[in-house]
């Protein structure tokens, strides 16, 4: 079974991403949306935990529309995180068996 995890809270304000990463395993994809996109940037206090999760086989994606809204440059996101649009969001949901929303 594969799971798509969506995280919509900033990792600097809530612990949603931490909890998500502690439970997401190999074959899971974590999609950062809304305020959660802040975690996608390089050189932040959240970067290491995302890199560690990648090492465990967790895939990462970030919603480009939410990056743009917040003025966060897509060329400064962590290597290995793919930028998707709303269509890509739907595709990810369809490609996984289940969706877990970390509200």
């Amino acid at each position, binding site marked *: 079974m594969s799971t798509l995890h969506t995280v*919509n*809270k*900033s990792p*600097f*304000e809530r612990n949603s991403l931490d909890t998500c990463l502690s439970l997401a395993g190999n074959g899971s994809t974590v999609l950062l949306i*809304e*305020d959660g996109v*802040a975690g996608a*940037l*390089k*050189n*932040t*206090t959240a*970067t290491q935990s995302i890199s560690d999760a990648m090492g465990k086989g967790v895939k990462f994606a970030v919603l*480009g*529309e*939410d990056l*743009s*809204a*917040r*003025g*966060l*440059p897509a060329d*400064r996101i962590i290597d290995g995180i793919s930028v998707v*649009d*709303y269509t890509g969001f739907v595709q990810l949901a369809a490609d996984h068996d289940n969706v877990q929303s970390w509200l």
Partner: protein
Amino acid sequence: MSVTKKFVYINRKAPYGTVYALESLEVVLIGAAFEQEVQLVFVDDGVYQLTKGQSTEGVGMKNFSKTYAALGDYDVNQIYVDEQSLKERGLSMDDLQALTYEDEDDDWAEKSSMQLVNREQLAALIGDADVLLNF
């Protein structure tokens, strides 16, 4: 008789995910009409409010980031950005809008409204406030 008080607005939330940032900006603009001393502080995720190049077409929300540039015209020209918050988020002052005002006491010279502050300076600022408003 009017009394001038020092109003400090503390902004700690990212824009768009919640309504706090927009609400704060609206209250600041309303408050500016009452000719009080106004200081804006951007700390924690509040620093995201000031990023340049915000484009909200994709999310279908109103882009209110351009309004910050108008603050100088309302005599809101004391804007403090927490250095530690920027650093934790992989950001620097170069990622933020350059907010300015025209100094009427200096032949309307254009000057920066923004100051990078450390936690010690921020603590002093909060300590000196007459009114604290949090968003």
